[in-house]
């Protein structure tokens, strides 16, 4: 089974996301396909599984951002399931995004008095931390790989 996905690059200095604008495709095993089928309707569970999956790490390292290009990334879309709202929501975004985040963040709207703008600001505030949870830091992967390689070298040297 193949999964199509799109990425966003996280700019840590500006705390913003840029759309990668490339549609990627990755082949997954039968076992991963079963997991995908189980999680595809459960939103953030799907996201968390996908971004931590070995096939994803391998594909990113080999095909998307080769070693040396240290990046923090997020996944915008997995097949037809979009996560873009987490990274590109703004106060002028459509009502469906408001409804989604009010439910996710448990924002009680006493709509007798609250403005869309006020709710929008509350959502943006909550997103500051939430979306960082969704970022995958490829730098950490490479550092941990380097450490593993170094340890291996020391052991080899020691044996010699």
């Amino acid at each position, binding site marked *: 089974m193949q999964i199509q996905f799109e990425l966003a690059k996280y700019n840590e200095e500006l705390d913003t996301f840029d759309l990668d604008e490339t549609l990627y495709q990755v082949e997954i095993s039968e076992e991963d396909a079963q997991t995908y089928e189980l999680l595809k309707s459960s939103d953030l569970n799907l996201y968390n599984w996908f971004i931590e999956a070995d096939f994803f790490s391998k594909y990113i390292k080999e095909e998307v951002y080769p070693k040396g290009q240290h990046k923090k990334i997020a996944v915008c879309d997995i097949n037809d399931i979009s996560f873009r709202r987490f990274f590109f929501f703004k106060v002028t975004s459509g009502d469906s995004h408001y409804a989604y985040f009010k439910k996710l963040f448990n924002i009680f709207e006493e709509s*007798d008095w609250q403005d869309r703008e006020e709710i929008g600001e509350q959502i943006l505030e909550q997103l500051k931390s939430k979306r960082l949870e969704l970022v995958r830091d490829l730098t950490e992967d490479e550092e941990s790989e380097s450490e593993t390689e170094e340890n291996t070298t020391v052991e080899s040297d020691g044996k010699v």
Partner: protein
Amino acid sequence: MEKQYIDKMLLEMDKDLSKHGMSRRDALKLAGLSGAGLLMGTSTASAEEEKIVKTDAKGKIVIIGGGLAGVSTAARLTLKMSNPDITIIEPNPQSVSYQPGYTMIAAGLWEKDDIMYDTDEFLPEGVKLIPERAIYFNPQENQLTTDAGQVVSYDYLILATGVQLDFERIKGLEEAGRALSGGNNDKLMEALGDSICSIYTEQGSVKTWEIMQKYIEQAKSGKKTEFVFTHPDTPIKCGGAPKKIVYLTNARLKEAGARENAELTFYPNGGAMFGVPEYHDAIVGQFARENIKYHYRHNLIEVDKENKIAVFDAKWQEKGPWDPVMKDFEVIPKREKKRVPYDFLHIAPANIAPREIAESDLGSAAGWVPVNKETLQHIRYMNVFSIGDVAQLPMAKTGGSVRKQYKVLADNLIAHMNEKKLEGKYAGYTVCPLITDIGTVMLAEFDWTVKPTPSFPLDPTVERWIFWLMKAYALKPMTMYGMLSGRA
């Protein structure tokens, strides 16, 4: 509601009450906790009492505010502590007066005397009262200062100040200043004049009835009369009250046979009638049935008293450009000033946290006291708790909310004093008995889930006479003799 029906309803009510040996008038004064408890489905005082285990927790507790929230909490703590050391700081000698009755006074159903109570009579035994106003807080030193210059130290602090009514933010009403619901509001009454009213103070509710009668007479005389009602852009206590006065004015106009000459228009700042969809739908249906007009997203910002024009900041939304990243159309907010002529103008004022709280380290950026929404403990100062209208809770500011908060607060404060985990949790319950006519009430109950949470096995979106009976007869005794004694 027709007068004939009202008379019939009152006759039925009298029959019902006579079974208990009460006249309608006497019921207000004499109905006790047992009657209230019967209608509310609450446990009896004696049953409740048996469950209470007293604690030896020690420490000086100071409560700021002697309204329903403050006194109920003091009473609860008194019941649960062996040697309570509690001080309430409250300058208004009638701070426990029954505010939910303001709507009833404004519709000529009750009189001011029906709701006025002396705080002294409801002060729990052993609780000290400082009749001053706390104006400066120093939570780092566990101290505060009153307007008489008295420095008060505490081990534990409970903030139950209530809100201030910010009339002065409305251009044309600057001289009204900020008001409190109780106490002397002569300055506010003078600023509002003889065509503008507000049920958010006790004096204001009396004046509302006077002004309402004047313009009902005008409509009765055949002159087209504009009744305009507002709802502000801040959280307010009893979010249902601005609509209740619409309904009650409508009822009195119909009773006088003057409805066809009256135009009733409600201008809420928000985009819905109620935060719970089921109640929103019911209210929209009621407005349509009664031919009451409404325009969402209108916030009153100015009053031209001389020309009798209300100026609103009117907002709406338009479909914006396609957002290629989000793959959706944007929504563009728009606004303009809208001038609305009125004969009778009812203002629900902006509610804000008292300045001394907002400007202290105890207040949040928005002024309210930031507390854990379940435990009611301050998020920075662990020995500080808050309850009622001044607490920053994402839930309606009502006495119904306080009824579910004060026991939680008392339990958690005692747990904190005993260095135990705070187990009490406020579940977000609140209730708004929405008077839809003289004789009917829709009992809107809900919690964090923003779903109806009815206490009775009845459709909660239906207006019922039994809930009117509860509002008119049971809630006041339950509040005055149940909550204020720390039991109901």
